[in-house]
């Protein structure tokens, strides 16, 4: 087509689309040198039309990976029909408890390899550690967390068995980083994100880049979401919901990476629950009236006593030591 309205564009849209598809397949399937990257970057920089054409091809190509989910039931050993009901979360928690027992209480441990390329990392209650992977990616484990990591030439996979972790992943188009957790799969598309496997739900918070969350439990209808920065996916076995959190809230949610807990108008009950994730010494709130009181502030994750003092001086609550625990009442 001759395009009198856009004389600066010589190539047709279809030609540009084909170029974009070609770049995508070259990056995904063949040896990719620094020189290739430079030529590709230059092509992208050349025009907005090039970038958009590439985004368009890439988004569908990334979505196409979800077709793997359709194959899953067929490749099941013995071809058995998936169970009608989702595996209850309780079962998973029980399995995780065994791991915790193995871990013990002193610091973080690298538990060794269970197979050729698989390594298991875990932190006890109150622990926090950073794992540096050979590809430059970094993973931080929060309190009471267990993570399996398997990397080889073709794949980068992690399984979060319990707890919470922050992932800062070096992007590799040919080898996406995949995190499996609680019947869901997160596929990083070059990102920083956190995953928290809570008692009844999974939370994935995206800080930078892009990541995709898919349900992998074939006994439920497939669910999926692509996350943008600032978005939080909340997944249960049945659903995936995406919300946006204000920056302030995200910052305080990331506080554990600096060893602090930050509360904005949190109820005393919620704040205590959060503290209890990090400490063997538990905070017990016994009074309905006092547990609904709101609290603000930043605390070191292990300073249960400071929390008790604030509850006493600010809220006027009664704070007592009982055995190992701190009991807060009216």
């Amino acid at each position, binding site marked *: 087509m001759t395009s009198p309205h856009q004389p600066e564009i010589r190539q047709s849209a279809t030609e540009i689309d084909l170029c974009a598809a070609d770049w995508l397949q070259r990056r995904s399937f063949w040896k990719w040198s620094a020189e290739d990257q430079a030529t590709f970057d230059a092509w992208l920089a050349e025009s907005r039309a090039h970038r958009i054409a590439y985004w368009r091809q890439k988004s569908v190509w990334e979505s196409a990976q979800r077709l793997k989910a359709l194959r899953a039931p067929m490749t099941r050993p013995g071809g058995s029909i998936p169970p009608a009901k989702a595996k209850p979360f309780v079962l998973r928690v029980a399995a995780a408890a065994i791991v915790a027992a193995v871990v013990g209480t002193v610091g973080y441990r690298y538990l060794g390899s269970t197979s050729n390329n698989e390594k298991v990392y875990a932190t006890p209650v109150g622990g926090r550690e950073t794992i540096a992977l050979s590809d430059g990616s970094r993973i931080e484990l929060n309190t009471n967390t267990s993570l399996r990591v398997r990397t080889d030439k073709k794949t980068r996979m992690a399984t979060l068995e319990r707890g919470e972790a922050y992932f800062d992943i070096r992007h590799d188009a040919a080898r996406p980083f995949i995190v499996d957790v609680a019947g869901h799969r997160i596929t990083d598309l070059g990102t920083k994100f956190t995953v928290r496997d809570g008692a009844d739900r999974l939370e994935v918070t995206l800080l930078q880049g892009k990541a995709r969350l898919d349900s992998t439990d074939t006994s439920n209808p497939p669910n999926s*979401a*692509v996350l943008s920065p600032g978005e939080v996916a909340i997944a249960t076995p049945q659903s995936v919901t995406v919300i946006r959190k204000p920056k302030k809230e995200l910052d305080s949610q990331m506080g554990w990476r600096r060893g602090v807990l930050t509360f904005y108008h949190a109820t005393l009950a919620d704040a205590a629950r959060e503290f209890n994730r990090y400490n063997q010494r538990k905070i017990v709130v016994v009074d309905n009236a006092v547990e609904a009181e709101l609290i603000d502030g930043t605390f070191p994750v292990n300073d249960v006593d400071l929390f008790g003092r604030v509850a006493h001086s600010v809220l006027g609550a009664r704070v007592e030591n009982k055995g190992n625990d701190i009991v807060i009442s009216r």
Partner: protein
Amino acid sequence: MAEIPDSGREEADLRPMGAAMTAAELEAWFVREVLPLETMLMRFLRRNWRDRSDIEDLRQEIYVRVCEAAEAEIPKSAKAFVFATARNLLTDLIRKENVVPIAAIADPDSVGPEADEPLQDRTLIAKDELRRLQDALDKLPPRHREAVVLGRIEGLTGREIAARMGIAEGTVSQHLKLGMHALTDLYLRDATDAGRRS
């Protein structure tokens, strides 16, 4: 307990909606808000533009204009903005080239009564997506489909695909490129619409 060295960069990436976007955010917005409108946009263009061979270029020009504007400020409604851009582009072309459009494009109804409907919620889209992906894949020419399935679903490398299919690596490249290109169009457009493309 070391301070995290790169936390500053994260903060810079967490700007509120409405502010200027980074390239990654623009891409995410474009993929999330604009691409799902492609079926409707193509229908609009075909209805309002006589020369079918121009339509892909018109679509591209609309995307370019939409993204250019979104870089400065994200439109509140992607749908309204995309179709306003489309109408403006066609109006400009008609004025410049003195051609007669098929239908009156100033007519707001020409976008269809669904123009202001909110998008479906994401869970529904996700379920629909898988079915549409499967449909698109099924419609690919057999050799393209085979290469795409081996690469995307079985996770083989280009070299492994060549070995598996018993063909040259350069041929695998072509199958993958053409397969991807066709899959993108098939997936982003209703089957009936894609079939009518010139």
